[in-house]
């Protein structure tokens, strides 16, 4: 399953770090983040709890870059 989220982040390198953090979250199969459109597209593994996974992903993003927002 795929879902797209709006995000807020200030610098491009931070965006790259966020993408990496979301990718490494358990339950996420793949993730792409576009700094230009400020959109995050997440592909989830089969049968995971999407909300829980995204909460965790958000937390992981906050760890690598405090100044970011994902509109869940």
């Amino acid at each position, binding site marked *: 399953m795929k879902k797209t989220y709006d995000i807020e982040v*200030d*610098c*491009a*390198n*931070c*965006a*790259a770090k966020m993408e990496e953090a979301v990718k490494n979250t358990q339950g996420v199969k793949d993730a*792409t983040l*576009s*700094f*230009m*459109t*400020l*959109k995050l*597209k997440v592909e989830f593994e089969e049968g995971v709890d999407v909300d829980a996974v995204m909460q965790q992903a958000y937390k992981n993003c906050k*760890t*690598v*870059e*405090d*100044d970011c927002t994902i509109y869940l």
Partner: protein
Amino acid sequence: MNQKQKNVFYRIILSVVLLVAVSVLDHVVGLPALLGLLLYLIPYGVIGYDILRKAWKGILKRQVFDENFLMAVATVGAICLGDYREGVAVMLFYQIGELFQSIAVGKSRKNIAALMDIRPDYANIMVDGKIEKVDPDDVEIGTEIIINPGEKVPIDGVIAEGNTTLDTSALTGESVPREAVCGTEVISGCINLTGAIKVRTTKEFGDSTVSKILDLVENSAMKKSRSENFITRFARYYTPAVCYSALALAVVPPLVRLLLGMPPLWGEWVIRALTFLVISCPCALVISIPLSFFGGIGCASTHGILVKGSNYLEALSNTKYLVFDKTGTLTKGVFEVTHLYPEDGVTEEKLLYYAAAAEHASSHPISLSLKKACKDPIDGTAIRDIEEIAGHGVRATVDGHQVYVGNQRLMERQQITISQEHTEGTVCYVAVDGAYTGCIVISDVIKPTAQKAIADLKNHGIKKTIMLTGDAKQTADTVASQIGMDEVYSELLPADKVQQVERILDAKGEKENLAFVGDGINDAPVLSRADIGIAMGGMGSDAAIEAADIVLMDDDPAKIALAMKISVRTLRIVRQNIVFALAVKAICLVLGALGIANMWLAIFADVGVMVLAVLNATRALRIR
């Protein structure tokens, strides 16, 4: 400026004023050390508190070596060494740079968004005799909507009432307005120019052309190009490499000096290491490349070329082989009467009249094109005894005359001698009262821009243009030589087309790409097999948009050369940015290590380079 940017802006002003005031005071009175420190800490706190907070949070989360950490350490370091003014100024300059960069990025983002601003905000519907504005999402299929002059068509549909002209330039890049009358299909995203129309919707907003295009362009940024992936990979090695270099720079030279019996100068080398770290931030590269691609894609979409991803825009610049489908791609795919060969004593009009009248009742494409070409009015009551002769043609009595219209076999069957045989296109022979009257050639018409398109492509470095078609050899060869194709393969079934493309794919060089251009309906397998599939979108044919990587909204083959031009230009900007950013950084890193570059230059190398790269990237938006 948004609120966040405004806040930073005010803080910058306040901090500058405070810094100047304290400096003047310091200069005139000569402040004692402790009081001086306290006073300088006021502007420092105003401008740098958020950086310090972020740096602290980063340390707690063990995410050191981000920009905030670097700036915090660099400025605190300067203050500890007694350079109060320099410490405050560096932080100030950094914030100004960040603000400028944030504005530049926001602006280019907005520019691109404006280019693609085709999203309609509302639809007018009639409720109890009054016009009401509603969200296009809430309009059901089959609803009649009213579109006034100057408004956007919000949803795909058919005109139920009224005539107008439509500006389709947002979708196709075509600036000449299109006429639309009752019964014409209209596509969302067009702008209604002259008259109010009533449109019966045929799709929901989500399935309408405008939604699909917006979706496609927004998602295109997600498909990353090789250059983008290269930079991401590069950053992964680069960041730790510079961090360790900086650490070595701070520790090794002082230790060596100690061993050599010289004073170690720890402070000096630590500052050099910090300068080195500030220079090293890879942001300029990381941002300017996707921005260039995004600009290129935006530029293409304003010309009616939809590119589904940066990777395709990148691949297009290396395209050396272009394979075309014929019908619908190079030709219009509509049959028209192209030649009339009446016998002596028969006018062209008369010939056409007999043929059109005899075919009057048929809806075969050939009959339709005959009827379309015939200017004389056809009186249905004057035509009797129509008889279709399968595989041959048609027989009818027109105004009392016995008329036969059909192929060569029909003429042979009726023992009518054809004075002159023709082979091009589809040929209709006509005989009236047992005598040969003439022949009409009906063929597919080559698109007016096709020949120029092929010539332009050659100028853009295309090595070979190849045409594949299911049509007869004769027709295919005629079209190909008229347009100037290098190779033609005719009488192919869809599966043969895939085979031909695979054969060329095997023969071409590693770095050379093959693009296939088709009309997308029966070409889907080839479109997906080629390196780049280019479809004639035919004003939003779903099959085409699905199957291809690039969609030409107005079916004009000349747009391929334009797309290549945009692609080459975008790639050039990307390369300029990579080289420029890396070169400036490399030079500054060396200068920093040697102690020649100070913190000011370091901040230029970080923020200045990024701003220049962003400005350069926005050039991708426009093409002459």
